[in-house]
């Protein structure tokens, strides 16, 4: 039995691993009146080279920009990010109150519990598509 488990573990380890993975994607709810949202997710880079996220397209919205929250002489402000670097064999997490995706001009309201498709483009020309769950306005995580 132990030998079988060891063989299984070895087989799993030898399976090709995706070079990039996106986890825990979520966006905030919007309405017909409130048309701004924000998006969050974690990017795992399994490759030996750093990569950078350079574009995100959000279905149902006309615009999405990466923003980060910075301290500007004691005042907290948001600044646009042209690219978001992910280190080799590392991860980056977009989180509330920190780096996030600002989504504007939402044309189709994001209803709580629904899913919204995000398409991420990286500087090595790879793209990833992920379904982000819509969470309430005061949510702090995907769950």
């Amino acid at each position, binding site marked *: 039995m132990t030998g079988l488990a060891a063989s299984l573990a070895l087989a799993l380890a030898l399976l090709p691993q995706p070079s990039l993975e996106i986890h825990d994607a979520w966006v*905030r709810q919007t309405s017909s009146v409130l048309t701004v949202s924000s998006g969050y997710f974690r990017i795992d880079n399994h490759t030996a080279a750093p990569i950078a996220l350079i574009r995100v397209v959000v279905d149902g919205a006309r615009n999405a920009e990466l*923003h980060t929250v910075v301290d500007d002489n004691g005042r907290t402000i948001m600044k646009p990010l042209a690219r978001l670097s992910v280190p080799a064999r590392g991860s980056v997490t977009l989180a509330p*109150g920190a780096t996030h995706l600002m989504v*504007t001009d939402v044309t189709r309201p994001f209803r709580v519990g629904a899913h919204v498709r995000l398409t991420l483009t990286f500087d090595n020309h790879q793209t990833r598509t992920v379904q982000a769950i819509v969470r*309430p306005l*005061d949510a702090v995580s995907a769950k």
Partner: protein
Amino acid sequence: MTRRLAALACGLGIAVGLAACRQDAPVPSAAPPRPSFGGDFTLINQDNQPFRLQDIRGRAAFLFFGYTSCPDMCPVTMSRIATALRRVGPAAAPVVTLFVSVDPRRDTPAVLKEYVGSFSTPLIGLTGSEDEIRRVAAAYHAAYEFVPSGTPNYLINHTSAIFLIDREGRLRQYFKFDENPNTLAAALDAVLNESK
């Protein structure tokens, strides 16, 4: 006395940046009110009715400045406050949370009504004329500035602090928008436990 002076110095500094400032200990209840910092105001609520801070005299309040198109910090602020209220428990039931919009052009009472209704914790949304908002912000040493974008989706950089107001309407403490809810809860608890 030293603590009060430190608090005031911190308060004066927030005209350019309150977010980095935090008063860690409550001002002693014996401390005299500081009329130049905080105080009463009248604005319009999400039901298009006048709201005076005096109207909630006898109830403690959290207050923060923001705008409904704020994609990240304002919802985070609200979630921190909501968590703090839950941690205090039933004693926090009378506590009021006030959201003062610094974006009166977009944040009409109707928009505020939709916004506050989207949160699971009761929230009063407040707006007014640009002059009225400017006066209230100045009273709380809260700064804000519009960031031109060339589109209707402009951003506003604004003081992101959470203000704690006691049952007498006095500003007692302020915190960063992402303050640990346990810290907010402890401060609120202290204010609620003061004798009237």
